[in-house]
């Protein structure tokens, strides 16, 4: 987009804005931010769409003046003057009629050509604006999931993009039809189950852009919004690094630690908080699929639903899918009674922790406070990006040290202590010797391997099924290494 054209577009937009708003100036006099105005494009797609609209708008204004003016003129001029006057009985005028068939046809041709041109231009990803950033955006009832397959990052409701570089988005929906719309960056495109859509957009300037679901998708349709944070390449890179950096472990017995325990017990089945881990990306994909399938198979009745990924929540600016600013106070309102912010939200309808008499959260005030402290503490720690796991040994011998790295990278310690305490899952002190005695005829190795592969295979009494994710990315060597590591915990 040449800057000149964009400027004229904006000037015209301002004119138009004045024209349309003239009658409403008084009423609209408060200080609105117009975050979703289509007259303030920040990228070539939206600019082209706005330019086209403004072009048609002025043509329409001309036709409007012609028709309405002609009509008013005719009514005034040919008003009945006296009784019984008999106008000339004209049946028509073929030449005139052909004229006013052909002239509109040319006007429409003048619209059709730039229209088709814009359709194809907006379809083609520009080749000269740098390497496109690939994003998968998935609509859920009622929030947006964003996946960066190249960067192995998963986040929700806040899309970070670099400025000046095309963003190629694959649009998908998990449940019903949604629509992906960032008015200042690009007109909408639907997210249709089974029908992947692809489009691209580009932010010419940094900023926080507002997006909203534009296809009616059920009870919380009005509250399905998101933000796009466009930042210069460097800032974007920083964000990427942050998203790969683990949270610092909370001090034992601190409110964060208590909040974390509460979170793991009540929230972690639907919300992932550690997608910075080595296998975080594929794990989260598998986890979302599992949550979704659980919900579908129960015909919408399961306590598990697809929940937004909460990794580094405190880096976001909103909660409840772009509905409110993220603050402790709003978070408290949201956690206690989500419906007061977003009626119909699945969290309140389905989650076990809301299965109380009044559908408020089934936690004490203190637990909620700790939970808030914990959630607000979800931010990149001091330790730098995730330590990568070394490749498996060439010889194929199980390697306990590598197993330890895998244990950390996959976030196993979130649920399993190395002592005897239960966090969510059993503590792992002496786990291998116990494992050998559980099922007759099944060795400890087989028992553990099966438990890692399919967590539902052997559920020990007193523990719940369905909490442990299926770590589908683990290779056989990885599993062997993990078991080798577990053997060292005695």
């Amino acid at each position, binding site marked *: 987009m040449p800057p000149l054209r964009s400027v004229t577009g904006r000037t015209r937009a301002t004119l138009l804005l004045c024209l349309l708003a003239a009658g409403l100036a008084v009423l609209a006099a408060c200080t609105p931010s117009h975050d979703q105005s289509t007259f303030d494009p920040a990228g070539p797609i939206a600019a082209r769409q706005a330019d086209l609209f403004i072009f048609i708008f002025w043509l329409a204004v001309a036709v409007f003046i012609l028709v309405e003016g002609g009509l008013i003129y005719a009514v005034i001029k040919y008003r009945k003057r006296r009784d019984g006057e008999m106008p000339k009985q004209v049946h028509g005028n073929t030449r005139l009629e052909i004229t006013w068939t052909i002239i509109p046809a040319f006007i429409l041709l003048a619209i059709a050509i730039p229209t088709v041109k814009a359709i194809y231009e907006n379809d083609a990803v520009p080749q000269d604006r740098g390497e496109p950033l690939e994003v*998968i955006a*998935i609509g859920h009832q009622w929030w947006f*999931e964003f*996946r960066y*397959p190249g960067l192995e990052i998963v986040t929700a409701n806040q899309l970070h993009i670099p400025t000046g570089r095309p963003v190629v988005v694959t649009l*998908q*929906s*998990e449940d019903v039809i949604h629509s992906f719309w960032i008015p200042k960056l690009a007109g909408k495109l639907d997210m249709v189950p*089974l029908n*992947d859509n692809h489009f691209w957009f580009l932010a010419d300037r940094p900023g926080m852009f507002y997006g909203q679901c534009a296809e009616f998708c059920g009870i919380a349709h009005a509250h399905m919004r998101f933000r796009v944070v466009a930042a210069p390449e460097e800032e974007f890179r920083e964000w990427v690094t942050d998203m790969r950096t683990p949270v610092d472990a909370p001090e034992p017995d601190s409110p964060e630690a208590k909040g974390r325990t509460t979170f793991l017990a009540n929230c972690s089945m639907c919300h992932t908080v550690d997608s910075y881990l080595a296998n975080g990306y594929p794990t989260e*994909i598998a986890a*979302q*699929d599992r949550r*979704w399938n659980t919900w579908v198979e129960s015909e919408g009745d399961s306590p598990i639903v697809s929940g937004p990924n909460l990794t580094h929540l405190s880096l976001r600016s909103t909660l409840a899918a772009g509905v409110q600013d993220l603050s402790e106070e709003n978070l408290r309102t949201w956690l206690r009674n989500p419906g007061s912010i977003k009626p119909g939200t699945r969290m309140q309808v389905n989650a076990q922790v809301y299965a109380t008499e009044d559908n408020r959260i089934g936690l004490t005030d203190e637990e909620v406070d700790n939970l808030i402290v914990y959630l607000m503490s979800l931010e990149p720690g001091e330790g730098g990006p995730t330590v990568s796991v070394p490749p498996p040994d060439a010889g194929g011998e199980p390697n306990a040290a590598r197993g330890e790295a895998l244990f950390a990278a996959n976030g196993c310690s979130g649920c399993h202590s190395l002592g005897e305490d239960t966090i969510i899952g059993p503590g792992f002190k002496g786990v291998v010797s116990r494992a050998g005695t559980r099922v007759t005829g099944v060795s400890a190795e087989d028992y553990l391997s099966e438990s890692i592969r399919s967590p539902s295979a052997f559920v020990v009494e007193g523990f719940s099924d369905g909490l442990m994710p299926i770590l589908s990315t683990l290779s056989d060597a990885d599993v062997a290494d993990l078991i080798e590591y577990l053997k060292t915990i005695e």
Partner: protein
Amino acid sequence: MTEAVQAEHHEPVEDTSTGLNNRKLLMWAFLASDVMFFGAFIATYLVYRNKSLEGPYPNQVLDIPVTSVSTFVLLMSSLAMVLALDGIRRNKKAVGRFWILTTAALGSVFLGFQVYEFYEFAQMGLTPQKNLFGTTFFILTGLHGTHVTLGVMWLIFMALVVSPTPKERWGLVLAIAGFYAVMLSTLAGIFTGEESTLAIISTLVGYPAMLLLIFGILGMFGGAWILAQAGRGDESSHHALDLEIAGLYWHFVDIVWIVIFTVVYLISATDGTPPGSAPFVLPGAH
């Protein structure tokens, strides 16, 4: 209808703007509407062809020889319909009535085949809920079957209309009841596992079905014999228009079946597991 016949049988030239009978025109317009109805269903079938995520697939259940027979039966019913109208027009009432009943009977046999087919498919695990093929197949052919059923009822009604005397009525009731008794017992035999009609008769399960079959045959022929005697030369051409309208409907339903047979059976016969079967792609699965 020729001018001569009209004049002879007091059917007035239609007093309408076009000279066409209102009801006949209504039927044509209705059929145009019905074209859209079946068109939309057939389009749905085509859109969903090869899109089932699991079996049974068409090549596992479709039995082209059997359906070809039932298609032939339905096509023959159109021929019978033409003969029926001809008989009624030419005041050969008993002949016309015979062909009306034959049309209805052939239509019923077609429906019997459809019941058999649905039953067989269900046995093989194909139900309307099973997959997209089941969904589209059963609803499309089922609605066509509903059309045929209505047509059969209309034809029986027409047979009743051209048979005003008690004797004719008794003949009708006997013949129709007998025919359906035969059909019922045959279907019962087939559903108990036998393939050929001869084998059914010899090994028919249970006494009642056998009795049904025997009484059915007796009733059918007895009724036919009564009807052949009754009201042979009666004037019937004043019913010709009614029958012609019913016939329009009947031929249309036949034509729709030819399309369905071509699309759903012939060209789908070899459809198996969809090529490169891409089941429901979960979001993000790359």
